[in-house]
């Protein structure tokens, strides 16, 4: 009975908490914020050893799993499958242009700042501090290279790309700040899934990036965005509503398998494609073909062995000799 109840519980598996945030990874924060805004009761577990996985964060609910790289993301999966739907009753296409701004310009900017623009200490703390040093170093290097490829940055165009990224981020902040105004939430003054992804970004930028970060400085110029973020933090993160952020007993036990954030996930299409279900006929055919080939092979080998059977006696004798002379 207890197992059934436990299985029906929502579990969010995200990356490590740090910088005063329940999870500091920029792809895990939006999901966390979404669940908090929806006032869903969930356990938070951590995976500390898989920084290069684009399956994290994921949400488990009994046997159901919503991976980060399926159906457009965890939030989309949860909405579509009716598990947690913050936008119920509202058309899903509104705020589409704002989604595009956050998902492309701001996401790119945060990715750049985390892996290339800053000294890498934030990324190290978030993703690699629980991996043994050689693995952490190599994976960090691999991730940084991957981000450069994703953003199209080469040795020649670094400065130009950087300027472009920051410019777009600035524009995005200005537009978002104007739209937000003095409201508490972005659309119609009530929490929506868009707030989750925007707050995910702003929480990360304000708290996880170093103080000297250019992106952080740009965000600080918009006091209403800062206020919007801090309000959420005060209300949901520091209010001590521990029923929704329990440290799950599983967390220390899976000490070598907590999972890490997936920066390479940004901008990449979901990698997994559903395998084409083989028809029954194909399966039977393949099985029969395998048996046929195996029988032929065995017949040949038996024939050869009967021919060459007398050689084995010699082989044994040699082996015995060899064993005797070893020390």
């Amino acid at each position, binding site marked *: 009975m207890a197992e059934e109840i436990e299985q029906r519980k929502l579990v969010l*598996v995200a990356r490590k908490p740090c910088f005063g945030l329940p999870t500091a990874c920029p792809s895990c924060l939006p999901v966390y914020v979404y669940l908090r805004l929806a006032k869903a009761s969930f356990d938070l577990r951590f995976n500390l050893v*898989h920084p290069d996985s684009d*399956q994290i964060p*994921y949400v488990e609910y009994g046997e159901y799993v919503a991976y980060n790289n399926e159906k457009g993301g965890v939030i989309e999966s949860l909405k579509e499958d009716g598990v947690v739907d913050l936008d119920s009753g509202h058309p899903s296409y509104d705020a589409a242009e704002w989604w595009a701004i956050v998902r492309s310009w701001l996401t790119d900017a945060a990715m750049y700042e985390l892996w290339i623009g800053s000294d890498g200490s934030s990324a190290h703390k978030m993703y690699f501090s629980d991996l043994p040093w050689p693995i952490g170093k190599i*994976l960090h290097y691999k991730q940084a290279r991957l981000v450069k490829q994703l953003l199209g940055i080469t040795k020649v165009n670094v400065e130009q790309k950087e300027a472009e990224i920051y410019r777009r981020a600035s524009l995005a902040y200005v537009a978002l700040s104007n739209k937000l105004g003095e409201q508490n939430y972005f659309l119609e003054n009530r929490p929506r899934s868009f707030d989750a992804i925007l707050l995910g970004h702003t929480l990360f930028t304000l708290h996880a990036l170093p103080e000297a970060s250019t992106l952080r400085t740009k965000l600080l110029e918009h006091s209403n965005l800062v206020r919007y973020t801090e309000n959420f933090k005060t209300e949901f993160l520091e209010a001590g509503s521990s029923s929704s952020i329990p440290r799950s007993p599983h967390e220390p036990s899976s000490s070598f398998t907590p999972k890490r954030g997936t920066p390479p996930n940004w901008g990449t299409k979901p990698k*997994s494609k559903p395998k084409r279900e083989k028809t029954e006929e194909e399966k039977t055919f393949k099985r029969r073909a395998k048996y046929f080939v195996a029988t032929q092979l065995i017949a040949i*080998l038996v024939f050869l062995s009967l021919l060459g*059977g007398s050689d084995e006696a010699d082989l*044994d004798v040699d082996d015995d000799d060899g064993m005797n002379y070893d020390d």
Partner: protein
Amino acid sequence: MADELEDQLNEEEIIEDDEDEDEDEDEDEDEDEDEPRLNLERRELDFFKRLSEKRVPLRVHDVLIKGNTKTKDSLIESELQVFKKASSMQEIIEAAAIAKARLQALEIFDSVVITLDAGPPELPGTANVVVDVVESKNPLTGDIGFFSKPEARSASIEGSLKLKNLFGYGDIWDGSVVYGFDQTSEISAGIYFPRLKGLLSPLTARISLLSQDWLKFSSYNERLLGLSLGLITTKYHDLAYGLTWRALTDPSQTSSRSVRAQLGHSLLSHLKYTFKLDRRDSPLRPTRGYAFVSTSQIAGLAPDSRSLRFLRQEFDLRYAFPLGYYGAAVNLGVSLGALFPWGNGYTNMASPLPERFFLGGHSSPVCSFRGPTTLLGFKTRGLGPSEPRRFAGRDALGGDLAVTAFADLSFDLPLKLFRQTGIHGHLFASAGNVTKLTENEFWNFSLQRFRESFRTSAGFGIIIPTKLFRMEINYCYILKQLEHDGGKTGIQFSFSSPL
């Protein structure tokens, strides 16, 4: 020459010869004898009989090595230490045979000929040993074989290139590609020094990239990048250190919860000690004797507390005795394995998935010492704890404590053709069980429940040993299995390595 030696034996003292006394280890026949053949053969037999019965005091004065251009003298000399202790002709001949076998075992010579020559005339009762080696002209050799390596879990095909004796220390450099029948593939390169700078034991180092596909059974892929150093390798003992980077992934995204929690990277820094004592008369078809193998592994030998930490122990015990007729023999065996993590909070920790014990598979338990892995009649990873996957199917999770036991009666088949080729039949029965102990399951462990949930199978079959591999065609009947086990009554084929 033979006559003179006979005289010596008769007088029980050595008379110095002016002529050389050549005694080839291969015992060439004497040539150019005009005496009748029968007489000569009888005298030779007489001579060798007396040689083996009476003691002729003789010691080795000097060892001369010829024919080595690349190979270092020190390497060859280190294999000739046996001559120092020899004090009679019989012992010298024995030592010569041992030395020759050891030099040939280095695999860097095309031929080794050891000759006994008379010692300097001023020192009676001495002999010189002349070692004539012919180094392999072509240091590069290629090989394709069917093996069963300890790291791989089942039989595999291996192609390798070997570069021998590059630096003259008997060093063997090899690169190999292995494809295993359990969806394993491996690329590796290694070096082997038989006796580097006076070390007693050969030194091996190997770097390998291994990829193992367990998606069908447990929904994960395993990739290993490892460095292993063989520290001590003797007939009974083997100590090796390994440093491995392991990554578990699930590209299918259908794994069960427990497997999902284990995906990620880990560093394994471990020491593995194997003690092997095999006193059976044959490794392929044992009819008499016993064998005991113990494998201990301790992981977490790094100052970094973030590397994997666990203790793993396996025991294999085999006993065989003959029944006397039809070449029948009974083989009994028991294998035991236990795995436990250590470190902070070890009672709550889950054991690493790839290190657990998985029961099932088709390899024969009679010949191999792989710990508790085989239960004939059950498919690979076919029994033990399992968990439902995301969609259909179940993941085999393995366990931390496993026991298997078997009894096997082998006998010759009536046809002479079968007996000559080594094909024989067998009846067998096996039992096994595996359970989880970690994550606080240890407190729920009950010996009685463990005993009651043993799975058992029995059957009969034919064993066909060939030079390349050993094949078994068995009919297995599952006597007891639990829900979710993958046992199947019916005919099965199994292949294992001849080694």
